[in-house]
């Protein structure tokens, strides 16, 4: 696999920042986009634009077919059973809110328990918190150990007859921990408890197979897998989508509307109210094609190599501390520098056109557990190279210099 060739497919890397080559290490936040995706947006808007589903004219027929093709691609990409299990949302946050809200309406009563983990992103906690506020549910947090791994035996202890759903990330956006979700799902299913997997970080970094995982729900952000902003995905087993109530109400999700009664459309339309991010979903097909052209195995091994290389190099820098040491890790490294606050690190690195993120990364629970207010985070995409890591390390040295560290 030729990374320079892949990198050249991303127009942004021909741009200079502060006169320097951009070293983009913030892909966990949002990935850059290959030309094929950007050009598809362009060509769709310029030559083919129409809304889908509702009109009979040729433009609309074409758009409807193209939209459907993306749904088929997503189905294949994550190995779902049918395209009716693929719902388009605006982001993974909506995907999780959709599940929490509809599942909660139907299945959560006072005292029921929702089990999440200390690794969760706010987007996989706040939606469940609403059920605590509005329905009297109880939220339990499966703990992590010092390495940043979920302790399965501890998680298991927290499951009881009141546990109604488990929501867990597949890959931590802070420690890079790969969570053994399949094992968790097995445990849960033995007790008839459904599991939602937050796949925001796994989708760009791992091979996803929802059939193999047997998860009930899987949430993905399009913009983190080389897609346009404005597109999220919810995979859900058909039985859930059939039995749960609809989420947003409006055009496109109904069957029959009367003054006293409304019936809803079939799947997947039941969960797609109003005008979709039509162009963005259609262009998202190119993101999947891009990932397939690279090959998920190649992507995984490239990122693994990069991550290991970066860990090695970072560890040799004085006063750098890596956050967590999970058994399996992918694409995400958070660290601190003794004596330099992460915000200062980010500002100083930016001067060298090295884009990283600093803060709590929407994981305050995890940071509280780690007794850190903030961390600096490096996250990789398929376009990153060892040279990027070298430049990162040099920039960190500069950071130490600015702060007069020994």
């Amino acid at each position, binding site marked *: 696999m030729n990374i320079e060739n892949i990198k050249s497919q991303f127009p942004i890397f021909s741009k200079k920042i502060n006169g320097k080559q951009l070293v983009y290490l913030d892909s966990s936040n949002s990935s850059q986009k290959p030309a094929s995706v950007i050009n598809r947006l362009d060509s769709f808007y310029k030559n083919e634009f129409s809304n889908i589903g509702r009109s009979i004219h040729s433009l609309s027929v074409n758009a*409807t077919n193209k939209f459907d093709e993306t749904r088929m691609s997503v189905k294949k990409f994550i190995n779902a059973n049918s395209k009716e299990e693929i719902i388009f949302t605006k982001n993974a946050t909506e995907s999780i809110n959709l599940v929490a809200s509809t599942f909660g309406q139907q299945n959560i009563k006072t005292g029921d328990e929702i089990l999440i983990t200390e690794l969760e992103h706010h987007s996989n906690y706040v939606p469940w918190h609403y059920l605590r506020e509005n329905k009297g549910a109880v939220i339990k947090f499966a703990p992590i150990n010092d390495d940043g791994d979920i302790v399965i035996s501890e998680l298991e202890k927290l499951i009881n007859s009141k546990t109604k759903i488990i929501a867990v990330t597949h890959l931590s956006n802070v420690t890079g921990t790969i969570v053994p979700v399949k094992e968790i799902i097995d445990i849960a299913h033995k007790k008839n408890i459904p599991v939602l997997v937050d796949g925001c970080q796994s989708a760009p970094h791992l091979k996803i197979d929802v059939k193999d995982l047997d998860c009930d729900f899987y949430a993905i952000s399009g913009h983190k897998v080389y897609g346009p902003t404005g597109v999220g995905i919810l995979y859900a087993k058909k039985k859930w989508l059939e039995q749960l109530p609809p989420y947003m109400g409006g055009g496109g999700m109904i069957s029959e509307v009367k003054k006293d009664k409304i019936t809803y*459309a079939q799947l997947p*339309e039941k969960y797609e109210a109003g005008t979709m991010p039509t162009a963005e979903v259609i262009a998202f097909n190119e993101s999947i094609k891009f990932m397939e052209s690279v090959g998920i195995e190649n992507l995984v091994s490239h990122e693994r190599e990069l991550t290991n290389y970066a860990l090695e190099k970072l560890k040799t820098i004085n006063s750098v501390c890596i956050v967590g040491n999970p058994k399996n890790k992918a694409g995400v490294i958070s660290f601190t520098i003794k004596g330099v606050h992460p915000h200062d690190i980010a500002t100083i690195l930016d001067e060298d056109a090295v884009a990283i993120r600093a803060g709590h990364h929407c994981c305050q629970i995890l940071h509280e557990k780690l007794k850190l207010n903030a961390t600096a985070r490096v996250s990789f995409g398929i376009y990153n190279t060892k040279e990027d890591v070298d430049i990162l390390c040099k920039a960190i040295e500069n950071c130490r210099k600015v702060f007069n560290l020994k």
Partner: protein
Amino acid sequence: MDLKELYQDIILEHGKSPRNYGKCLGYNHNAIGHNPLCGDQVHVYLKLNQKKMVEELTFEGSGCAISIASTSIMTELVKGKSFQTAKKIVAEFLSMIKTGSKIATKDLNEDQKIKIMSLSGVKQYPMRVKCATLSWHTLVSAMDKKIDDVNTEVVD
């Protein structure tokens, strides 16, 4: 594609003056189908006699020329057929609309084949396929009596 291939005279004629319209006496099967895209609806009434023969087949509903003609032609062709034959005709029709396959069955005479094939132009108009197939799906559902409602979104 020529519009006249879609809107053949026979279709316009059936669209305007549908056969077997109304509720037949003594029906023992029925089902409602609707197309959420447009709100069109068809109600199929069916009388299966003891020999499992389609003794009566009528419909009520509103829709476009394609949909009304398709339903009207369906009632004509299926009436008088056995349960099995009726199912076969439906399958051949659906396959014609979706894949463009020819009508091969011996259960229809030449005249009837011409009628059913007058609907084959619909294949070129993907957004109109549901108009042509709704009543056929609804007929199956009435025959099977599994569910009461057919929704073109599912079955196509």
